């Protein structure tokens, strides 16, 4: 399945593990590469990731809903009031992917779902270019959710393998909804394209992580033993 190719920019070995993830950033020279039938195309150089103390890193493994995964990519987003990470998880069994959103020290596990399944007037209007109203209640897929956040998000940079090319400066409109039991829904609008994600809040501990990033002066937590 995995495809090993030399980076057209620096010649280092780059791995494409899934046809569903055609985009990646070269680990050595940070070139943004896209794989197609014609070969590899280069889209400039990804910006350097700012220094952070996130406990997650590419290569970290864990278990979600009984299935084991590996962290293979990350996109860092920012907005007027801060920044957050979206880590891409690749599941071993079926090759499916999920996103582990990391913001304010909390984690959300989200899977992409087809937006056509969503029959919510409010969200349909948002998908068409409407503006979300914070605090508005939305009934979605049989659950009562509240619009918790709506903002223009700016892609800072990316690393690893990704389903799309995340160029610095790329802007999307992002709406987050929350449920009473820790359910989360996220909607991203990029021009006319809408992506829809659904999931829940998780703790790092419940993902039974292995290969957490070591941070100077901090003992690895008990749950990572």
């Amino acid at each position, binding site marked *: 399945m995995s495809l090993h190719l030399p980076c057209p920019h620096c010649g280092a070995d780059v791995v494409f593990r899934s046809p569903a993830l055609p985009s990646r950033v070269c680990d050595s020279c940070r070139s943004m590469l896209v794989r197609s039938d014609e070969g590899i195309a280069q889209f400039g150089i990804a910006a350097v990731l700012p220094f952070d*103390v*996130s406990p997650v890193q590419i290569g970290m493994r864990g278990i979600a809903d009984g299935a084991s995964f590996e962290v293979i990519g990350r996109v860092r987003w920012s907005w007027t009031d801060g920044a957050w990470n979206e880590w891409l998880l690749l599941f071993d069994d079926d090759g499916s992917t999920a996103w582990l959103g990391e913001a304010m*020290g909390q984690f959300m596990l989200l899977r992409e779902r087809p937006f056509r399944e969503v029959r919510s007037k409010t969200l349909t209007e948002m998908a068409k270019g409407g503006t979300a109203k914070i605090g508005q209640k939305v009934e979605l897929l049989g659950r009562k959710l509240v619009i918790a956040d709506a903002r223009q998000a700016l892609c800072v940079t990316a690393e690893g393998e990704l389903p799309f090319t995340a160029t610095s400066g790329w802007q999307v409109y992002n709406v987050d909804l929350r449920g009473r039991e820790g359910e989360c829904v996220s909607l991203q609008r990029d021009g006319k394209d809408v992506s829809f994600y659904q999931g829940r809040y998780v703790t790092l501990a419940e993902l039974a992580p292995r290969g957490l990033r*070591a941070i*100077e002066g*901090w003992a690895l937590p008990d749950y990572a033993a």
Partner: protein
Amino acid sequence: MQPEASLSPPPAPAVRALSCPNCGGTVELRAAGYTVHVGCQYCGSILDATDGLAKLVIKAQTALAYPEIPLGTRGTLFDVEWEAIGYLQRSQNGAYRWDEYLLFNPYHGYRWLVNARGGWSFGTMLTRVPTMQTFSTYALEGTSYTRFFRGDAQVDRVVGEFYWRVAVGETVKTGDWVRPGFMLSREANDREISWTINQWLPERDVVAAFGVTPAAKVWPPLPHQPSPWGAWLGKGARIGGIALAFLLLVSLLLSGTRWLASEALPVAVDGREQSATIGPVHLVSRWQRVRVRTTVPRLENGWVDLDYSLIDRRNQQVYAASGAAERYEGVDSDGPWTEGSRDSDVSIAGVPAGDYDLIVEYKGNRWSQNDTAYPDGGWMEPTNAPQIVVELGTGTLYAGNFLLALLLIAFPWFVGLMLHLRFEKARKEQSDFAPAASGDGDD
């Protein structure tokens, strides 16, 4: 377990130093990547550190804050090491000041360490939303919390780093609901509503973790401070209940009478007053109850008057008691009937140890009516061999002892209960919803 070789590069640095664009002081960034705003500890300017650079947002505030726990201090609470990275001084419109420390551990995220009037709490931001249960209660994970405070909270002073755009003067609407040991807090502005669960911390835990100076007793107690008497009362009620049940059982088992003397005395047919002395009787306990039981086996349609004098041989002290046995029978429209009893049972309490004589004075009587079954001497006919049987005994325990034990056991518990009620009263009086408070009448 050994980490895989490929996953163990040198550890990432934990701290990044920035220099304050206003005063040039070194500002340490301890939660890089999460931190949005930093309050410079030297000049109080607010800096934006979202992208790893320090950009001045608000230049030097008027007053600097000096947190009791210096930022960068680490301490262990609930088995996790935390670093104090941010400090906020907050108040309700300038009154009721309290302090909040933002704690951070890269593997566990953020927590709050709150100090109000010297009492400490450990706050965790909730990812679930509590549900309104009734007009005055909210529920979280099956537990309910009763409303306590409502008001505004503003930020007065800021030092260190925060994961949001912190600003002096920033105001949120707050609401607090409590149960013993825990407070559920809601903060809302026009952008978002966030919920935090605050766990009350014993001061010794915070002293041990962060080396704070112990404060004076927190009085009135914090809204969610558990009554120090609460657990003790519950345990006391259980243990006391068991002890009392045991005592009651022992009393019932041992409170029987030990019989010391018994004597049959004849009853004269002419019904004159008679006297007899029984004794000596030796009483061994320091204090005892003396029981005298007299049975008249043949008694029928008559009565016997009984006067007892228990006399201490040593000092002629007299303990007197009296009784009577009476019994009647007959036939009326409802059939045969009987009334009364053939014995008399009296007790003399508080008799000291010693040798005693019991003098019994008794007088047989009969009820004479034309239609009685005994037209002559009745039950006192000599052919009946009428007699009284007097028995004397001592009781080892009786209800008084039990009551005394009950008082002794219950007294400390009641003292505890009083202290508990005083604590709870003082605690509840602080509430915006306390029944006694005149309130602002807006609920």
